[in-house]
């Protein structure tokens, strides 16, 4: 390895737990632990899973123009956020492609926190800084090294975390957050996640990561909480049809194509970057669309495999995998809009063999309320 991999504060813990470590976007991360991806996935669906997501990037935007600035850079409507509320959004480029997807947290009218993907943190930081003009009265701070982030997810997650904090968790609504103490440690407690389950993401100082991790593992031991690696994180988000940057999203993919029309507020007041291109694209109609599919013959579609319709190459798989909870082989693919309808028969070229699949509605999995 030519360059040193970055490590989260939990690196030693992962190794002690028997984590199988891989290079993930320059980070030395556990792809799975001893239990394996299927058990980790099922633990999160049935009980609780614990994820180290400290590699994610955090960028503070602070000052009187913070909201207007972020509203100009992202597709969702930042002016609609209340204090203590967060939303999912996208940083778009001038062609309407996606620089990154992110969460925007509003701490106050002059204080926003952007949480971005690990592998794109530097790119995002440069992109955001390059649009900071002298007229914007605000300060930008890349605080990625100042936080660890631990996600506790699953039907038992709220009850487990509640044992470690005096902050009442149940009243915190989905995509809202608060500041409080977890196991006596100052933390941002956010009811968000990337698994399709209920749960929280907890941000704290990196030197408290090991303490927090162990406190959560201990608090959830009776419930069978399991540490979960990147492989389970991926299968969980795929069953829930959540986008992964570099797969469903990229510099040359419009959020509208990726099914993110719900966070692309073309009607909002600010002229965000790429808005004109996206509005024009919507006007003429999308040529391609992200669609979910499931295999109807034995075979597993993988990222990058070609999609065929009526014998002609029509698209490409962006994410494909066995779905451990659904016990089906599923995937997401870009296909021409006309072929994106439920029930459409397609086939996937699996190492030279055309294997049948059909378009199905997404998300593949929706948690019981």
């Amino acid at each position, binding site marked *: 390895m030519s360059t040193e991999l970055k490590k989260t504060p939990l690196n030693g813990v992962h190794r002690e737990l028997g984590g199988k470590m891989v290079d993930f976007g320059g980070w030395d991360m556990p792809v799975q632990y001893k239990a394996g*991806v*299927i058990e980790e996935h099922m633990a999160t669906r049935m009980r609780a899973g614990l994820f180290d997501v400290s590699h994610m990037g955090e960028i503070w935007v602070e000052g009187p123009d913070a909201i207007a600035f972020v509203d100009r850079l992202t597709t969702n409507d930042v002016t609609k956020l209340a204090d203590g509320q967060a939303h999912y959004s996208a940083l778009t480029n001038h062609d309407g492609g996606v620089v990154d997807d992110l969460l925007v947290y509003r701490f106050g009218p002059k204080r926003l926190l952007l949480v971005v993907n690990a592998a794109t943190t530097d790119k995002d930081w440069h992109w955001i800084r390059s649009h900071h003009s002298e007229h914007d009265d605000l300060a930008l701070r890349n605080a990625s090294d100042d936080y660890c982030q631990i996600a506790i997810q699953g039907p038992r997650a709220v009850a487990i975390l509640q044992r470690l904090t005096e902050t009442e968790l149940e009243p915190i609504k989905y995509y809202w957050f608060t500041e409080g103490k977890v196991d006596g440690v100052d933390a941002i407690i956010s009811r968000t996640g990337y698994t399709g389950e209920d749960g929280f993401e907890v941000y704290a100082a990196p030197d408290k990561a090991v303490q927090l991790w162990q406190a959560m593992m201990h608090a959830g031991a009776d419930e069978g909480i399991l540490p979960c690696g990147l492989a389970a994180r991926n299968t969980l988000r795929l069953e829930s049809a959540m986008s992964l940057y570099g797969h469903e999203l990229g510099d040359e993919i419009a959020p509208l194509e990726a099914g993110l029309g719900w966070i692309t507020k073309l009607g909002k007041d600010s002229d965000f970057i790429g808005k004109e291109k996206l509005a024009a694209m919507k006007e003429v109609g999308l040529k391609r669309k992200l669609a979910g599919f499931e295999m109807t013959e*034995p*075979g*597993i579609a993988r990222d990058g495999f070609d999609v065929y319709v009526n014998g002609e190459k029509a698209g490409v798989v962006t994410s494909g995998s*066995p779905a*451990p909870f659904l016990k089906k*082989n599923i995937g997401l693919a870009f296909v021409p809009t006309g072929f994106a309808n439920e029930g459409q028969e397609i086939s996937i070229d699996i*190492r030279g063999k055309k294997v049948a699949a059909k378009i199905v509605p997404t998300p593949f999995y929706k948690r019981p309320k």
Partner: protein
Amino acid sequence: MSNIPENLKYSKDHEWVSVDGDVATIGITDYAQSSLGDVVYVDFPRAGDKFATHEAFGSVESVKAVSEIFTPVAGEVTEVNEGLNDAPESVNNEPYGEGWMVKVKMDNPGETDALMTSAEYEDYLSSQG
């Protein structure tokens, strides 16, 4: 450490071979199943299919990866382990037992002499880092 039974022969592609007369039973090693992770699907040849040495005869897929399996010896497939259709996890749990994949009637039973012994395979694994 990987489990490497002494009574078997091994290929560089991490298959094991158990020899009974001119019939070779083939599977993947403990090291191979551990590298792959949870196995969810095994794509087999059919009984009667013929393969040359080192030809890909199927694939084994885990949640996150796919790996081709190669015949360490030339011959004709006489039986495939249909049990793996319902219980592919046997490849993880018992790679040298219930997780076997195919039986091949060898064209040349002497071919197994070229495969590694358990000691040689152990050295091979450590040389792979």
